């Protein structure tokens, strides 16, 4: 574009003012990128949920157990290819603040249902052979500086047969995630050890995880399973993993709405700031714009030049802001544990571009129209 030097020269006119406007735009887009990541992190459970997995819980209340004997019957249901079970241990590691998921499960089954948890073969073998062994995800290991071979003590509400409530595990393995959004915050140990040692609740599990052959059959299979256990002492509620996670996300509240509201305020303010700068800039240039018209620049061309200038300003600030957001997001969870999976969602960059475009157009249109409409003769007479 041969007009670029002309447009660029206008931005360099009042360098300080351009710089600070640019910086405000940068901060706005930094917030945009970062807060979208925060909003996404609250709902991440929903996104990483397996498409071909169902979750089965007690229908009456989520805190009530299911019998392990249900396993066989569930396996027989047509369309079901694999089943695992799990229990929420809910213990305390050192301090109640150190909250993380502790799961008692059948190791083979659990790992089969969650193939995205990658565990080296040797660690897997060690874990299988170790009754009081456990594995944890990399995020958790990093958080508490655990190494393989460490002994992890956890205090739980579950009383052991020996009367104590302190349980100890050997860390036999650390699993990594197949994708950046895989949950690596879980601590998993043997159900057998759990069930054999605990005083109450023999033969009970917290929930089942089921893999089905065809995801679109989910509703039918769910209904079939629930029908199977209807009117028994342990009625079930089966849903897709996604719906299950969504239920939790929704319980937190509409984080998305709050974040959207904040970002709207931010963008409104930025619009004012940048818009004001552009208006001032055009107002100062009235004579020059008149001269350009004298030279033969058409009204449409003048309009375009001002809009492009505004878009350039928005683009420079916006791209830098988004880039900075990306860097900041890489530093991970800002809340110290609540949002373990903290990444920049793939769509947000595209969304950011659209926002840049809209900002540039919105801040530039009024000044551009003013520039386009000015009358040469009157403007020159002003000088």
């Amino acid at each position, binding site marked *: 574009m*041969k*007009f670029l*030097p*002309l447009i660029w*020269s*206008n931005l*360099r*006119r009042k360098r300080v003012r351009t710089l600070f406007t640019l910086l405000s735009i940068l901060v706005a887009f930094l917030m945009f990128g970062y807060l979208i990541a925060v909003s996404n992190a609250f709902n991440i459970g929903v996104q990483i949920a397996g498409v071909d997995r169902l979750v089965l819980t007690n229908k009456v209340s989520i805190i009530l157990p299911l019998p392990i004997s249900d396993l066989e019957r569930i396996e027989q249901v047509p369309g079901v290819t694999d089943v695992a079970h799990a229990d929420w241990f809910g213990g305390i590691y050192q301090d109640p603040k150190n909250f993380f998921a502790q799961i008692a499960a059948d190791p083979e089954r659990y790992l089969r249902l969650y193939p995205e948890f990658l565990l080296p073969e040797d660690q897997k073998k060690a874990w299988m052979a170790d009754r009081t062994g456990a594995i944890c995800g990399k995020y958790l290991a990093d958080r508490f500086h655990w190494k393989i071979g460490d002994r992890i003590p956890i205090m739980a509400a579950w009383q052991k047969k020996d009367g104590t409530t302190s349980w100890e595990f050997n860390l036999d393995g650390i699993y990594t995630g197949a994708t950046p959004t895989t949950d690596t915050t879980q601590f998993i140990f043997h159900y057998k050890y759990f069930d054999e040692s605990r005083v109450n609740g023999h033969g009970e599990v917290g929930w089942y995880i089921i893999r089905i052959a065809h995801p679109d059959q989910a509703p039918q299979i769910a209904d079939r399973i629930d029908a199977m256990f209807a009117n028994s002492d342990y009625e079930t509620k089966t849903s897709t993993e996604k719906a299950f996670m969504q239920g939790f996300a929704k319980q937190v509240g509409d984080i998305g709405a709050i974040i959207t509201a904040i970002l709207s305020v931010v963008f409104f303010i930025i619009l004012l700031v940048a818009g004001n700068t552009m208006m001032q800039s055009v107002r100062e240039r009235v*004579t*020059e714009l008149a*001269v*350009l*018209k*004298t*030279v*033969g*620049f*058409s*009204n*449409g*061309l003048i309009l375009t030049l001002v809009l492009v200038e505004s878009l350039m300003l928005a683009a420079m600030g916006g791209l830098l802001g988004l880039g900075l957001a990306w860097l900041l997001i890489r530093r991970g969870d800002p809340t110290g544990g609540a949002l373990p999976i903290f990444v920049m969602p793939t769509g947000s960059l595209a969304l950011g571009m659209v926002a840049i475009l809209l900002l540039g157009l919105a801040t530039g249109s009024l000044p551009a129209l003013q520039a386009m409409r000015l009358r*040469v*003769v009157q403007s*020159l007479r002003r*000088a």
Partner: protein
Amino acid sequence: MSPATISQSQESTAAAETAGALVRVRDVHKVYTRGSERIDVLQGVNLDVPRGDFVALMGPSGSGKTTLLNLLAGLDRPSGGTVQIGHDRIDKMGEGELARWRSHHVGFVFQLYNLLPTLTAERNVELPLLLTSLSVNERKKHVSAVLTVVGLSDRSKHYPRQLSGGQEQRVAIARAIVADPTLLLCDEPTGDLDRKSEEEILDLLQALNREHGKTIIMVTHNAHAAARARRIVYLNKGQLQSEAIQ
């Protein structure tokens, strides 16, 4: 004026008629309304300017000379009458058409130079060429050519604030001629200059007219500047009063 001069002026007008004048202004009126006040700035002006002429437009302040210049440049529309430049009836053109027409046919020089302070001399001169389809190199060639003509090739990368008034005006003139326009219109080009710079600018204008055949119409209230033109036209109270040939 002596009878000789009057008849000579009649001759030149006649010559213009037959040769086909470049500029033909017929019975042009211009009215401004300021609130409830109505001002008749131009009241029936007739003017012919043949190709290659150098006309000085003189008159007291408020006589409408700048208004007439603006009409010739297509920056304003007459309230009545016709303005024809070459084959174009510019009084009948729309805004977009006029802009396009201006880029090809008019070079304007202002009293206050009106260079863009954020651009170098050569970028300022380049501006009219951005409206053409010339390539980067072709534009560069034209720009350096005209900068040579006005004698400022060594200052091409300077910013207006680094140039003297006279130098700025020369850049402005270069800008005005770079696209090889039909008409060069100057509004008090030496009004803001010291004596020495004034002479330089007038020398340049004369050279452009005599050696390069540029048609120039110059508004001035300075008789000394007007003396450099081929012809002086007097405007008073919106009407052309008389002509004098040099």
